[in-house]
């Protein structure tokens, strides 16, 4: 069993892991950089170790200092959270070599899943459906063009080592291929230190659906249902929800079965996510696997009642899963909004600063995961995630209204601080989003219209404070939750392109 766990992360996920440890009776060792010395997780921990200056590569990415901290503090396990070292097989291996239980999959499996081309090949072998394309790396533009001609345009050129939405280029016509190929390789080499790319069919009008899975070290695996993360900006998720209401129950069950089968076929253990693209007919195509806990895991927690971080730790400690597939019954609908310290009107530029006011929403089925407290400073050294607002309700329409109510309750103020709160409220008023008919390109296509709506909300919002009372403040998203499109023309937004016929 694990008695003392080091959290190799910061911010909201560090606090989330510390809470799971507390509930399990596991002691917590926090590590922190100089700028995080007064952070929430440091205050919660049994012991905190200062591991380096603010720059991540000298602190949260600095393996020797973290491993030394674990050994010195007497930890017997390490939880990497997400980001930073969470998908670094070398780190997982060093932890194991030092006798530390790594909360995650075996290093070799992590390595395989970390390379998208390898993951594609393994999942194809396991029988998962893939978009037409190649599994092997493409070496020359000529080779790539031949493949693109065969599978048909549009295609997408992807970096094998890519992640976080970087290193992919959509090519719509043969004459654009060479340039896209060269640029993507250059980006891949610069950002991921690996120029390997592959080519697959680009599905327009698709939805991003991912399946949460959990596998123990005894060959058991379950699916915990799916999340729809189609609201993305440049492949960065902004709002996630579950279940994927556009799929039939049969399609959802089948997707879950495929995900578990794929994960078990490579010997995966722990919590993981299989990402799929789903076309208009509900056909799903495997994209990639994330070998770690994900930012949006609370959506699944609210739907299933299962504490994913707790289960992750128990599985890492060698326990068998305490439930079977039939015990997992997702209920109702959940939505998560990522509240980022960013200014959407300035290209989502980071807008960090001191949080002079941080009033978080509360109330029924309303959860806010954050690593910040009022008075803390959002550091420019790290990602801009300020917190995650998650709500649950019996159905999607109620969840949308609940989220809007919660967003309206939230107050974040400080010099230079901007957030994505108004953007989320605008998104939840968009007819396509309300009707659940948006696709993964929706935000890139409609951002100006959404921003205009957000600005008009902002204009209305000031001066609406407590004096006028609580909940009535919040205008309901729409009188009819599924408004007729023809009556909704006030802000022009280009319609979704039709699905390609092929």
């Amino acid at each position: 069993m694990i008695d003392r766990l080091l959290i190799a992360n910061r911010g909201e996920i560090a606090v989330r892991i510390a809470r799971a440890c507390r509930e399990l009776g596991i002691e917590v060792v926090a590590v922190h950089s100089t700028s995080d010395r007064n952070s929430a997780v440091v205050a919660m921990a049994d012991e905190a170790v200062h591991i380096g200056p603010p720059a991540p590569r000298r602190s949260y990415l600095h393996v020797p200092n973290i491993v030394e901290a674990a050994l010195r503090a007497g930890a017997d396990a390490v939880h990497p959270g997400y980001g930073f070292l969470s998908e670094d097989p070398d780190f997982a291996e060093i932890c194991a070599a030092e006798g530390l239980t790594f909360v995650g999959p075996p290093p070799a499996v992590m390595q395989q899943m970390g390379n998208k081309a390898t993951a594609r090949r393994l999942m194809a072998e396991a029988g998962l459906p893939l978009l037409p394309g190649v599994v092997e790396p493409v070496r020359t533009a000529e080779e790539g063009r031949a493949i693109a001609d065969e599978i048909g345009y549009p295609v997408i050129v992807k970096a094998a080592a890519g992640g976080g939405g970087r290193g992919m280029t959509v090519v719509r016509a043969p004459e654009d291929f060479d340039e896209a190929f060269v640029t993507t390789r250059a980006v891949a080499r610069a950002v991921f230190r690996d120029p390997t790319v592959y080519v697959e069919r680009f599905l327009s009008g698709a939805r991003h659906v991912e399946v949460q899975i959990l596998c123990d070290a005894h060959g058991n695996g379950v699916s915990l249902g799916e999340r729809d993360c189609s609201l993305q900006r440049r492949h960065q998720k902004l709002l996630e929800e579950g279940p994927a209401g556009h799929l039939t129950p049969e399609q959802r069950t089948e997707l879950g079965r495929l995900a578990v089968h794929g994960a078990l076929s490579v010997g995966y253990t722990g919590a993981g996510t299989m990402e799929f693209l789903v076309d208009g007919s509900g056909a799903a195509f495997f994209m990639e696997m994330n070998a770690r806990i994900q930012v949006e895991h609370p959506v699944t927690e609210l739907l299933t009642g299962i504490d994913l971080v707790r289960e992750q730790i128990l599985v890492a400690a060698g326990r068998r899963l305490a439930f079977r597939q039939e015990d997992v019954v997702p209920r109702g609908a959940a939505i998560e909004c990522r509240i980022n310290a960013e200014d959407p009107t300035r290209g989502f530029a980071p807008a960090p600063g001191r949080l002079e006011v941080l009033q978080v929403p509360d109330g029924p089925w309303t959860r806010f995961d954050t690593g910040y407290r009022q008075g803390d400073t959002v550091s420019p050294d790290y990602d801009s995630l300020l917190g995650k607002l998650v709500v649950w309700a019996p159905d999607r329409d109620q969840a949308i209204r609940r989220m809007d109510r919660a967003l309206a309750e939230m107050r974040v103020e400080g010099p230079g601080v901007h957030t994505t709160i108004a953007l989320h409220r605008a998104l939840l008023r968009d007819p396509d989003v309300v009707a659940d008919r948006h696709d993964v390109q929706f935000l890139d296509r409609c951002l100006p219209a959404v921003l205009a709506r957000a600005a008009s909300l902002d204009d209305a919002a000031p001066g609406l404070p407590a004096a006028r009372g609580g909940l009535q403040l919040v205008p309901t998203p729409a009188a009819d939750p599924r408004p007729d499109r023809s009556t909704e023309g006030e802000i022009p937004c280009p319609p979704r392109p039709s699905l390609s016929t092929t």
Partner: protein
Amino acid sequence: MAASELSTRSAGPDPDAVRDLHDEVVALARDLPAGLRRLTVRDGDRAVEVEWATGPAEGTVMAVAPVAAVVPATAAAATPAEPEGTPVRSPLVGTFYAAPSPGADPFVRVGDEVEPGQTVGIVEAMKLMNPIVVDEAGVVADVLVGDAESVEYDQVLMLLRPAGGAR
């Protein structure tokens, strides 16, 4: 903390580049071996000029700060009133050793004079011995960490006071 007030919003066509520069400057200012005196930043063609105190007398202008064992505290930490002397800090997390091998004489004792470049201790991390080297002359005023004690990043290992007194 003038450095941390550098605005990334001060125009500039490429926000990423400006941000990089900002990060670089903040990191540089934090890594200075002594208090920051003057900071000049230009964005066109990226020039950074930093001046810091070397002693009571003159300042030095250099572009890059060498990585030294002595790193100043970046903020007024919750540590009790900083004792007299120049702190020698641990550049990494590990185990402090006062002597080159068990039973051997320590590298330094209180009252010893040290020269720039002299090893005053070792911090072991991941089975690697990292010598702790001072970058200025002085006299060991106090050793704050015991032999084989674990230390964290930036922890003060010992204090130096100026040698002789009139330097």
